């Protein structure tokens, strides 16, 4: 399977265009961690269970993303700096349909 390209703006405003595998059962939070685009301990705190919101990001492109689960909705309702385009990176599974996705990491809180 082929890699896709994803544009990630980190918390300092720096844009990174990274290759993301779609055959490794990976999510967006894990991708950010694998490229170390946010310091360890500030992202993916709960490991990816939609229970901490440390991987919150803003989706900038018009890609059709999977619906938010109840757990994601509820967690975002308690998070800070939430915008209408906020998502939890750990709940966004990397698939070929997401090629060209553009996201920005939400501030640390």
């Amino acid at each position: 399977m082929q890699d896709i390209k994803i544009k990630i703006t980190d918390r300092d405003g720096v844009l990174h265009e990274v290759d993301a595998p779609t055959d490794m059962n990976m999510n967006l939070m894990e991708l950010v961690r694998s490229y170390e685009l946010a310091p360890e301990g500030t992202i993916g705190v709960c490991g990816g269970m939609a229970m901490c919101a440390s991987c919150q990001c803003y989706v900038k492109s018009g890609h059709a993303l999977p619906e938010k689960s109840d757990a994601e909705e509820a967690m975002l309702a308690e998070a800070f700096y939430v915008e209408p385009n906020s998502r939890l990176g750990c709940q966004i599974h990397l698939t070929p349909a997401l090629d060209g996705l553009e996201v920005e990491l939400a501030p640390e809180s």
Partner: protein
Amino acid sequence: MIKTDILIIGAGPTGLFAVFEAGLLQLKCHLIDALPQPGGQCSEIYPKKPIYDIPGFPEVLAGELVNNLMEQIAPFQPGFTLGERAQTIESLEDGSFIVTTNKGTRHQAPVVVIAGGLGSFEPRKPLLDNLSRYEENGVEYMIRDPEIYRGKRVVIAGGGDSALDWSIYLAGMAKEVSLVHRRNEFRGALDSVEKVKALKDEGKIRLYTPAEVVGLRGKDSLEAVVIQRATDAGDEFLLEADHFIPLFGLSPKLGPIANWGLEIEKNSIKVDNALDYQTNIPGIYAIGDINIYPGKLKLILCGFHEATLMVQSAYQRIHPDKRYVMKYTTVGGVQGFDGSVREAPKAVIKAID
């Protein structure tokens, strides 16, 4: 002054298991944790989540794993300083250390083990302009002594279990309890949600949803909060209050440990993984999610392994003149400091006539 053989900072699964391995070597442990209960993330963030990679457990709930560990280490009578954060460390001439918490509790031990996970959990504070002005003057992020709310007007914000549970608890004793949440849905246990609904119907809890606390008012101490309804008009109103308790969860911070002179890389403590998980300061070890070395994996099972090797080194440091031979528990059993003994039943040796 609390004195022990091994002082463990962090009472998560790794710290707890270290008590067991130390106990097998007849070393006593004391644990410090910023949270009010043992278990670390397993208890605080995901007690109801199943874990599938604990050797020998095809599936175990995180909370259950903590209960099991507590049972396993009970014979070794560990001491606990809970709800306090390790703040400073001091080395003494005799090679031992004194660790003092943010509340001034002092602990002395020849070996200090940092099993701090991602750091100590600090409350996540809402983004309100004059928040710090009212801290300790009506704004609290954790409920330590519920009695201070008796007869008072309390506003709680949040949508998780702690917001629900404390609203229920305080409904019986405070003069007024108001619960403010950004959504109509809550993220808590079903029976808590139902209980809050019942108390709301009885008029014992005022529920403001979907709404948000957007401001704080008061001269010296808190007198009212500004609540904004999540409608298109976004109308705001004042709600008189003596206390505002925002419960938006906790986020881990490395905190004061970062200033202890330890080598830090990627928010983690560098250790010698070829030998004993000792840090750059002899006598201070780091195990579990908080350490880093080439190939590190942040898994509970790796923390258990690190704890086991660490105590061997700690033993040598505490008893430099003693020779120690590792004993299997199948052979030596488990002899608790409480006098309890667990051991394999003697084999029956009998001839067949």
